[in-house]
Each structure stands twice: as C-alpha cells, then as structure tokens.
C-alpha cells in the first residue's frame, strides 16, 4: 500500500467514523441513564433531515444566505428534532413504562419514515435532476479550520477535515469527563445502575432519565447532520445508509465499553475496517462484501470477551433496558 492510498483510506475512515462517533457518544449518555434506545437510526435520520429542511428553506427564500446563520440554524434544528424523537421515547418508556426495545424500534421506523418522506418530497420539489442541494451550508460545514496547515502528510492525515470532526472529539472528551468526574454525571450513572437506590438517595430519577435521553438523542442527531452536510455534501438520498450507520453507532457503544473517550479511536477503527476492502488489491466484488462484515464481527467478539471476563468496569449499566416504577419491588 502506497503512502497516498494509506492517507486516503485514513481520511475515509475518519469522516466515516465521525458520523458514528456522534451516534455512539449520544447513545452512551442515554444508556448511562438505563435507557437502551434502539431508535438511534431513526433519531439520526431525524437530525439529518431537520437540519437539511431548515437550511433548504432558508437558502431558498434568502437572496444572500449568511453562512453563520446557516450553520446555527442547521445545528439548532437538527438537535431539536432529534431531541424531540428522544422525548417521544422518554415519555413512552419513562412515564408510560412501555418496553424500551419495542419503543426504540418503533422510533427507528418512525424516524426513517419522516426523514425519507420529507427528503424524497424535497428532491421532487427541487425538480430538475431530482437532487436537492444546499451549497452555502454544506460549504460552511466543509470548512476546514486547520485547512492552511494541511499540506504535509501529517496535515493531510489529521488536519484536513470539516470542523465537525473536531467537534465530535471535543464532545467525546467532555462527555467522558462529565460522566466520570462531575456530581451530575455520577448521579446519572447511579440512576442507570440502580434507580431504586438512586431514588432513595434523593436523586430525581425521572428528571435524569429524561434529560440524558433527550440530550443524548440531540447529539446522535448531529451524526445525521454531519452525514448529510459533510459526508454526502448537502443533499439527500433515500438509500438507507443512515440506518446502517445508526446500528453501527449502537455497536460502537458496546465496543467502547460505555466510555465515550474510547469512541475517538473506536469510531476511526470501525471506519478503517469498513473501508479497508477498497484498498486491498485483488479482491473480487463478492469478497469485498465479506470484508465489510468486519466491524460487526469485531463488535461481537468484544461483546463475548466482556461477558466472559466479567470485569465490572467494562459492563454496561446494570439496569439497562428496564423501566423503573417506584412502587414495584
């Protein structure tokens, strides 16, 4: 493998990894509260489409769109829509105590439907080639803050990306500190481990579960936004790729053993594994497909190893997937 092809593999891995990194950080926060949200793909879809729709209309009806407003509008609407998805999930699972897995899967169906319905309709609205585009916003999202430094090999490897790549890293670190060093973070983990004990200690379980789930979903939504704006360059395709990325994000949470800082390298590793087939010579088209299996197989191995070694710090939250009712013993 030559240097230049290694660089392009690495770049593909980082951009791919950033989408699922957002997803896995958000889902880590959600799962730490004891909510196993299988609606990640749906939420990612909601975040992606909301950002796209809002700036589409802004760019359409404004003669000279301001790129800063584009970015803020996209971020805000993406976060809001994704958090709203989280709110539906929270209301059903926390207040109405519906089953988490089933509610999450329904959220995935719903989010996929809303996003592809709106996206498909927008494509029709845009007419012509049948693909919408939001050039101002996607330019703003692709802006490389370290762009001037990216001429060397090192620069190409680490500094040649849109700013959301670095935002993801920052959020991952902040999340790790929040969960392990702050009082609120520790309270949240107590809720996820054993809500009854947390409740007895005076922690407002419902409030923590609601906020962790909604904010977590908002972060997941950024993954969808990054995919739409940077990865595919500000357009929409009804091809189901966000869905498979969403499931990879769920896998990544396990792979990182519920530590968001691990997702910084974990996400890029998934990206490398996913794109490796493209750079290995002599693969037939069918054997490439076998290579794409790798991220999932690796996740399965991690899952087996953590259950086999039973180390306390690598397990998921103890009450993950269970709803809490104070009067139930």
């Amino acid at each position: 493998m030559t240097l230049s092809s290694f660089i392009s593999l690495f770049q593909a891995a980082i951009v791919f990894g950033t989408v699922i990194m957002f997803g896995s950080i958000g889902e880590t926060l959600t799962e730490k509260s004891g909510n196993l949200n299988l609606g990640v793909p749906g939420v990612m879809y909601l975040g992606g489409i909301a950002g796209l729709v809002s700036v589409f209309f802004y760019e359409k009806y404004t003669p000279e769109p301001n790129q800063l407003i584009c970015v803020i509008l996209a971020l805000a609407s993406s976060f809001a829509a994704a958090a709203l998805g989280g709110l539906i999930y929270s209301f059903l699972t926390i207040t109405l105590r519906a089953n988490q897995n089933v509610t999450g899967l329904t959220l995935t169906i719903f989010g996929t439907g809303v996003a592809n319905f709106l996206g498909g309709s927008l494509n029709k609205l845009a007419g012509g080639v049948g693909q919408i585009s939001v050039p101002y916003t996607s330019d703003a999202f692709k802006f490389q803050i370290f762009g001037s430094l990216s001429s060397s090999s090192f620069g190409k490897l680490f500094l040649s990306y849109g700013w959301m790549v670095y935002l993801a890293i920052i959020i991952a670190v902040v999340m790790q500190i929040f969960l392990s060093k702050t009082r609120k973070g520790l309270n949240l983990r107590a809720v996820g481990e054993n809500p009854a004990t947390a409740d007895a200690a005076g922690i407002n379980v419902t409030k923590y579960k609601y906020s962790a789930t909604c904010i977590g979903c908002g972060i997941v939504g950024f993954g969808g936004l990054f995919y739409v704006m940077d990865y595919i360059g500000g357009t929409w395709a009804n091809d189901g790729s966000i869905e498979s990325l969403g499931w990879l994000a769920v896998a990544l949470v396990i792979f990182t053993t519920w530590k968001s800082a691990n997702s910084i390298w974990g996400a890029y590793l998934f990206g490398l594994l996913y794109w490796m087939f493209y750079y290995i010579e002599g693969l037939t088209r069918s054997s490439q497909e076998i290579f794409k299996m790798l991220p999932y197989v690796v996740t399965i191995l991690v899952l087996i190893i953590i259950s086999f070694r039973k180390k306390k710090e690598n397990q998921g939250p103890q009450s993950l997937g269970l709803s809490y009712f104070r009067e139930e013993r």
Partner: protein
Amino acid sequence: MSKNKSSVKEPLLRIAKRDSIEAYKAWGIRAAVLIAALIICGFIIFFITDLNPFKVYISMFKGNFGTTRRIWQLLRDMAMLLCIGLGLAPAFKMRFWNIGAEGQILAGGLATAACMIYLNSLPNYLLLIIMFVTSIIAGALWGLIPTIFKAKFNTNETLFTLMMNYVAIQLTSYFVALWENPYGSNTVGIINPATKAGWLPSVFGQQSFLNVAIVLLLTVIMYFYLKYSKQGYEISVVGESENTARYAGINVKKVIIRTMLISGAVCGLAGFLAVSGASHTISTSTAGGKGFTAIIVTWLAKFNPVVMILITFIITFLDRGAVQIASDFNLNEYVSNIITGIILFFILGSEFFINYKIIFRSKKQEVIK
C-alpha cells in the same frame, strides 16, 4: 400504602399497578387508542399534504381490498409477517430478546436460494423438501450462535443478535455478487424462471395459497405449543423468573437453547417462504425490516398467536394502503412508516392504561383500597 393518613400533602395523581383488568375494558382501551391514532394520522396527512384524510383512508382500503389480486397480496404479506412473529413469540415469551430475526430470515433464504441454484436438476418435490429442511436448519443455526454464548457466559443477546443481522446482510451481499445474473446487474434475478424448479406450486391458481396455508397451520401449532405443552409452560416459567425455574428443577440452559432453536427455525422458514413462495430471488432486502416489525407484533400480542393475526393485519393493511396512497396521490411510500410509527406509539402508550391505574386525590380514597 398508608400515605393517606400522614399529614404530607397528597400529590394530585398517583399511579398504582392494576392487579387485573376485565378483557372488555382492555380491548376497549386498545380500540379507542387505535381510533385516536387514526384520527391524528388523518390530521397529519391533511397538514402535510392538504389531502382529504377520508379520501386517503378510502384509497388505503381500496389498495388492500380493491381486487382479488390485492387481497391475495395482503394475505401473502400478512403470512410473511405473521410467520416471523410466530418465530419470535417463544423467544420473547422467555424474555430472550431475539432482535436477530432479520439475520435468521436471510440465513433461511440463502439456504433456500442455494438449493434452488445448485440442485435444480432434482425432481421438484424432492428439491422442495430439501429446501424446506435446509432453510429451517440454517435459521436455527443462525439463532443458535448468540444463544450458546447467552447460556454459557450470559452475553447480552439483544446486541449480539442485532450484530448477527448485519453479518447476515453482508453474507447475503457476498452471495448476491457471487450468483449475480445477468452479470453486472448486482442482483440474483428470478431463479429458474423457465423450469420453476424450487418454486412453491400454485394451488387453486394462487401462487400465495401455500404460503398462507403453511403459516395458518403454524399459527395453530404454535398456539397449542405455547399454551398447552410442557415445553411451552417451561418457556413461560423461565420468562417470569429464571430463579424460580431453576428452583422448580427446570434446566434453564437447555430451555433457552431449545427455544431459540425453534425461534430461529421458524424465522428460517419465513426466509424459505419469502424466496420459494414469493419473490423467487434473494437480496439484502429479502427480510426488509420485517424482522424488526415482527418484534412489535409479538410484543403487542403478548405472545398470543391468535391476537398476532389481528396485529399483523393492522400493520400490513397500513403498509399496503400506503403504497396505494403513494401511487394515487403521487407521494412517496415512506408515508407508511410514518403512519405505522404513530399508530405503534399510541398502542405502546395504551398498554400503560391497561397495566396501571391513575388515582386522583380525593377523600374517597380509603374506599378504593
């Protein structure tokens, strides 16, 4: 619950678990919620698309019952979803979260397609029997892998089976690229279009008749298996409490493995029906998300195969209806996901009012126990 006597101010509402609820009340709540959901969907349709919701619902109805052919398509789709739901029922009743139906269906479908491609010179009845058996074995094995780890190391089966779906999807992509026909199309195409080797035969002129009949038979078998057999009883004891089961002398590991073999086998059979009885081809969308939808079917039906028929009807009706709306009003088909999603949210929420009661603050509380 002697809270009433204390001087602390009572909250306005209090929630308590119901011991039991009369069946007519429970079904009344469900029906009311379903109607409420349909009304809300009507409003949403109106606001998004400016269409008259009644016309939309009529168009949905026609899409399902308009012609004999459409009715059979409805039945065929119902049979497919019901079959997967039946497969998941024993696993879920045991509280084993088999999210991996998609993968098990694909495993069964791949085995079926492989037999159709490599053994097409055999006499048709023999080929069909071999396909039937291999698809069941393939599905069962695909379900067995996570189960062994669950039984041995208590590995999280929700996430394991979820990952197995994607392994199966990539495996399918591999075989699609291997078997592609014609070359360069990246699809397998209709297998044995001329000889129809390995196609489930038409009965009474209906290609889907056997699909529907097999699944109906399976529904009856599963109903009795879960409700009246010793094994079915063991499944529900393990589902209620593994410790109780162990105390009662049930070999929990054995029950888990046996039940998941059955669950995977039935999902594999669904793959057989999809390939041999419906599409006559295989692709990564052969399962098409039905493995996930079936989880919702099973859960909402409380693992009762007869109730599952009703729920598969509602979901399939909406799905096929939405395809019709899409073509009648020039919308895109994803409208069905939105409507299905909203209705399922409502049904999921309604379970709360069946399982819990809300008690308002009042002086009569002592009477209410």
